[in-house]
């Protein structure tokens, strides 16, 4: 496992996402209400580019005819078959025990705290004043 700087926090404001390539893997970084989450870009169902799907809320129901919407921005629908994945856990909403998209450890770190040589900055130089999204792959 190694750690990689992939973006500044300004690159991914709340509600937005970024697709990055780390060690040959495509990974989607999502900013859900200030929290950064990282999942693989491949849908476990048929390999679709998961991160091109719509970010949605959670639809539930207490009984037929009633609809409750919550957790807006916390789920992702695969762009193909529409399977819902919980961004926080990577699990399929319909079959959480069976189908999961791989998720990755993420940290936000200040530029000053990053030690040269230990990390690999992908596409940009590190500045002491900025905050960076660091992913472990």
């Amino acid at each position, binding site marked *: 496992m190694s750690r990689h700087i992939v973006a500044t926090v300004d*690159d*991914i404001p709340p509600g*937005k*996402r*970024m*697709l*990055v*390539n780390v060690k040959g893997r*495509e990974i989607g970084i999502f900013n859900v209400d200030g929290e950064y989450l990282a999942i693989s*870009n*491949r849908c476990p*169902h*048929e*390999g*679709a*580019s998961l*991160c*091109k*799907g*719509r970010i949605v809320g959670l639809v539930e129901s207490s009984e037929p005819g009633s609809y409750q919407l919550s957790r807006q921005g916390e789920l992702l*629908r695969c*762009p*193909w*078959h*529409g399977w819902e994945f919980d961004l926080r856990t990577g699990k399929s909403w319909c079959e959480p025990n069976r189908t999961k998209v791989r998720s990755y450890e993420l940290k936000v770190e200040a530029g000053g705290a990053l030690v040269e040589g230990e990390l690999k900055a992908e*596409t940009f130089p590190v500045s002491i004043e900025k905050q960076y999204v660091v992913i472990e792959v």
Partner: protein
Amino acid sequence: MSIVELDRDRPAEAKLRVIDCDIHPSMTAWTEVHPYLARQWIEHLTVYGSHLRHAFSEALTHPRMSPDAARVDAYPDEGGPPGSSLALMRSQHLDPNGVELGMLIPLRWNPGSQRNLDFGVALTQAMNTWQIERWVKNEPRLRASVLIAQEDTAGSVAEIDARAADRNFTQILVLPRTDEPFGRRRYWPIFEAAVRNNLPIAIHVGGTNGHPSTGGGWPSYYMEEHHAVAETMQAVLTSLVFEGVFERFPKLRVVIMEGGLGWIPSLSARMDKHWARLRSEVPHLKRPPSEYIREQVWFTTQPMEEPARASQLIDLFDRIGWDRLLFSTDYPHWDFDDPRYAFKAPLSAAQRDQLLYRNAQAFYGTR
């Protein structure tokens, strides 16, 4: 949404060769067919438009779960709906998926379901020309289907005969929700023209005929409607068998498109069982239904079944017959099947090649 540009979305895989039997091209606007329509019909199209047997003149009865019933990632950069850009079709599908041949199945807006028969016929003629001019001429991998307005059998036969010499047309296309079950004798001139011209008939999910989607009424939800299309295919296959279409036209070949596969062995057995009991009603049938199906009917594979265990899928293919299956993706629709990942069962290279390529190669007689 900001996305870092990458090389490609998926690594290229070696030696994937595919014949995709179900690709849906679309228009950016109706004006695309204007060059192939008489002035009278351009005006009619503009003023009166589509006229169907349900409440909406153009929208589907049950809204789909995604816009245009399509993959969310299939919108061309230059604008237009999914399926309207040849460039994107190439870069997103034909090239990376190893598609050597793709069969075009234009759907909107149901020329065969138009209540105004003359309008429907004119539309089919225009859309047939559109397929060639807009798609096939610009992309040698694509082939066209002869659209017909099946309720006008004379018009349909004329159109089939007019297109048959053009080998860019590989089949005749009908949507199964016709005025009467498609095996009924009023449609037999179409089968006769198909056989005479050595063209198979593709029956692809769709159509509106004013009949509810179920024999017990209209469904409320798309979840039901999406299921009912499989039952509709069962009904059309039953009609073709029991009306004696296969008996009367032993050289006719039919491909059932997008109806699913899971019901095929069960329905074949059910047909055989009850035919044995009730055969005095249909003396024109000389053989068990399952035999006609085994010899004269093929099935496209999308949407692929996903049973709990891989062995169940293999068992399903064994019972249908591996030679019956023609791979399809349904690009650019939402329930697209990727040729690499659609089969949730380990296949040998030979089996994979048979499903993805060789069966369709034999069926369409290419090369």
